[in-house]
């Protein structure tokens, strides 16, 4: 898949666990896990906004395009 989700890298930088993030974002663990493992087919702007706010980063830090 050309779009890669770097959520795990960002989470490691901020030293935040999946459980902690899911609680703060009010998203289920299962859904966050789908996003983290790259199984997700789409991401809502609201989710992206919440992640960026919580991890204090830009959308480009989480999503990456690769040939």
């Amino acid at each position: 898949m050309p779009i890669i989700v770097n959520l795990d890298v960002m989470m490691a930088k901020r030293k935040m666990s999946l459980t902690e993030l899911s609680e703060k974002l009010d998203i289920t663990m299962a859904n966050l896990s789908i996003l983290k493992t790259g199984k997700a087919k789409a991401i809502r702007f609201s989710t992206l906004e919440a992640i960026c706010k919580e991890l204090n980063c830009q959308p480009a830090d989480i999503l990456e395009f690769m040939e």
Partner: protein
Amino acid sequence: MNKFIISFLHGITLFGLIMSCLFLIIQLIVTLFDLPNEYITHKDENSASSTTFASKGNFIPVSINMNILNDTIVKYEKKDSFNKLKIGNGDFPLHEKGLLRHDALYDTLKSNILKHLNEVKLDTIVGNFEPYLAKNHPLRKSFKKDSVINTNLMTGKKSVQYNDVIPRAFLRKNPIIQVKSIHSIKGVVEVKAYTKRDRILLSLPEWVEKILTILLVFQLFQILKNVKSNIIFNIINIKRIQFVGLIMIGFFLESVFANFLYHTFIVSNFHYSVEYIPFDFLDFQGVRSLSLNVMKDFRLTNLYVGLITLILATIFKRGLALQQEQDLTV
């Protein structure tokens, strides 16, 4: 409540599956071993017709249509346990339930069908005949109860339309009636083949039908089983629904095939007119013509149902794709 209904339907399909397997076994026995008609026909003592609950196997249902000359006397006689239908000099001993067996008719049909079928031998020809009355027949006026009054909405003129068939109730009250100018007699003839090869050939449509029924009921059983365990939008379920649609189209094709088969073997060229009535037929003087028709109809409804089911399966497929996309959106 919903769950109860699904469980109930699931039970019904299980029962249907067992029954259709049983019918297939009966069909196999009927085709391989030539069983007499009594084994597979249930006779109801109180009813005028007999109900066949099992396979007819090697029987070909064809309807017979006799046209009778206007001045022929047709006698319909009903005694306690025996019915008789008399046309001209011919004598039709009718069985208790209105079934007819007539040797001259049998011989004629046999010799004619044999011409087209080469090796097929006929065992029994059973008919269920009903006399029809001509339009201007005086007896029609006695069936006042069965008449329909039509009113022309434009002119307000009333006209009385009488029933074609002599009502059963009338025959019960008047055990012997002698009528002139009955214009036609319609009935069902069952033609039976009795070499194994012909039995298999002529019961081919029945086989196809039974196997399709088993497949259909099995698919429904599996779908309901999945629905019962809350698996609804599933690629396997959709494949099953698609298969059900194809089976319904298969039923339609089977009826077309059966028609073709019966027409080729039995009905083609089987039409008498007064010049061609063979010597055997002198037995029923006054029979103007005789024709056979295959009773099996083209089941167009099955084609429509099959196509609708296939369209539904396509819609379900799209629904599944949407649901998967929705599930994987974070």
